[in-house]
């Protein structure tokens, strides 16, 4: 097990380094005006040259890369240029991340708490009214663009229940609607996958044998079917949780939540290279950590995954 974790960890680190390097190199291809910010027009070409040299942009590319890595290890992602001039990128992101993270985690918790049991119930009552109702819900969520029902919720539900229209960090009640909106999609996908995997498992031969040996239907569900159906989900869970940090652009702009959702868009529009670089770094690391944790989770719950020599074979 340890060997497997170590191997996957090493792979992840290498992938991460490659991605960081690519992001770094790509950003060097962008126009240099981005680094000058709003002051660009006021500087003479000589002043611009001096400014860029001071930033280290005239050093050979390998030296720049070296500097970038050294800063990174110290947790320094540079300073914002145009977004909030001279504020460290780390601070900007830290301010926002808390909002997105708390919304995201609450939404994931909510969607697992509702989506997974819903899927289980649907599988058990396959073909009956609850299953049809749930399927209807899933189809609705998948088929209708989320913007539509997000807006409907914001406009009508706030009106009917007299809830605040916008987010206000001092009013806990104003957290409710964005949270629910955020959870609607994941509830549908958890329910859909859980139902699907449960139905798959229920049709397997070992269920027949377990029934034939006299296992109660309820025990069968809990100790055989559910656990086995949960395995495919285990792989994706860590990634889903991690990605809640990135926030939702729709929801955050609809309810004016000062989260991460809109930050990348803002930073790109304002050509704030430092912030973009920091964000891309965070997003890609999250993706890789998510995959890594997913593989570990999978290896923990599924004994068929061979560990160590020979790699992972199912």
């Amino acid at each position: 097990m340890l060997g497997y974790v170590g191997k996957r960890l090493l792979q992840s680190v290498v992938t991460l380094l490659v991605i960081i390097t690519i992001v770094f190199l790509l950003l060097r291809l962008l126009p240099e005006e981005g680094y000058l910010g709003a002051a660009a027009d006021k500087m003479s070409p000589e002043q611009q040259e001096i400014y860029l040299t001071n930033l280290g942009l005239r050093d050979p590319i390998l030296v720049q890369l070296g500097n970038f890595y050294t800063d990174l290890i110290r947790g320094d992602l540079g300073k914002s240029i145009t977004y909030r001039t001279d504020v460290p990128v780390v601070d900007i992101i830290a301010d926002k991340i808390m909002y997105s993270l708390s919304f995201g985690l609450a939404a994931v918790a909510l969607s697992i708490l509702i989506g997974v049991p819903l899927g289980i119930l649907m599988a058990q009552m396959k073909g009956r009214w609850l299953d049809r109702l749930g399927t209807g819900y899933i189809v609705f969520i998948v088929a209708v663009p989320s913007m539509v029902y997000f807006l409907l919720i914001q406009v009508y539900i706030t009106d009917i229940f007299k809830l605040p229209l916008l987010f206000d960090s001092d009013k806990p009640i104003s957290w409710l609607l964005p949270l629910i909106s955020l959870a609607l999609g994941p509830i549908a996908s958890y329910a859909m996958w859980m139902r699907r995997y449960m139905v798959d498992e229920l049709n397997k031969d070992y269920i027949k044998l377990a029934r034939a040996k006299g296992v109660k239907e309820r025990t069968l569900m809990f100790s055989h079917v559910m656990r086995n159906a949960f395995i495919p989900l285990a792989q994706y869970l860590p990634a889903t949780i991690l990605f809640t940090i990135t926030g939702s652009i729709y929801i955050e702009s609809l309810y004016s939540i000062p989260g991460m959702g809109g930050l990348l868009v803002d930073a790109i529009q304002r050509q704030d290279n430092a912030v973009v670089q920091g964000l891309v770094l965070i997003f890609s690391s999250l993706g890789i950590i998510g995959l890594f944790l997913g593989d570990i989770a999978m290896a923990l719950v599924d004994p068929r995954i061979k560990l160590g020599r020979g790699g992972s074979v199912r």
Partner: protein
Amino acid sequence: MGETQKKTKILSIENLVIKFKLRGQVLTAIRDISLDLYKGESLAIVGESGSGKSVLVKSIMGLLDKNGYIDQGKILYNDNDLAHFSTEKDWLKIRGKEIAMVTQDPMTSLNPLKTIGKQIEEAVVLHQGLTGKDAYEKVLQLLRDVGIHDVEKRYKQYPHEFSGGMRQRIVIAIAIACNPKVLICDEPTTALDVTIQAQILQLLKNLQEKYLLTTIYITHDLGVVAKVADRIAVMYAGDIIEYGKTDEIFFNAKHPYTWALISSLPQLGVKGQELYSIKGTPPNLFKEIQGDAFAPRNPYALKIDFVERPPYFKLSETHFAKTWLLHPNAPTVEPPETLKKFFEEGREYANG
């Protein structure tokens, strides 16, 4: 089973009719079957795919698919009529406890995420009232009984660490762990290769003696039947068309379908000639069957075969066949030459 042994019925099926609802149509899978199972014997039910063998035994354990139901008849076991069981509570008194099953495909019959020890233990805990250390010891003993070595280590292993034959041994251990009186083996060797088949059959035979089991074998492999069965029931299109003791069926079969089935044995093939096969297809079970279901494929069919369903004709105390050919007024029909020779040789062999 010796002739002298007193026969007691353990399970009795009376006039059973099982139907399935399928896409708005009704399919009759079992058409008025009666069958007795005697304590300690081993009965083989043979027939081609779709003849209703599996449906019949599934109904005994209440494991019919949701769209299947018992339309008529009784399944009597210990004064209980299983045909009228409907709740899970009722069936839990039977499943495992009284009647256990060895399923067909060992590769998929075990839960891939539970150690085989735990899977056997589940049955031990449910049916033998043992827990903790006692249950563990019992599982180890069962593993030894089914011929697994290094049991402490094997207990902790998962199904994917076992070969097909080994897994079938585990499935058998699970069935035995229930401590049943009747053991149903649904094509226990179909998924195994030939060398392993013989071992598994021998194992089942030994266990039957050791645990005083009554066994039902479901199979379409007559070779299996010859090795293990005391009695044979031949099924065709949801009906038992002939039944009798193993040598009665093998060496004195009377129903043309049984003839055809035995003629299909590759051992009876003649070198250089094509192997025998039964022409045509089984009847459509969605439709009501007129007369003898085998008549359209039967070269010896009489006119009456297409009109009226034959009753059982008694050949001996134990041997019955459903064919009009046995009626006193019917013309005498001999089985094909190769088969006749096989019957004669067999009888000579059986008589010493």
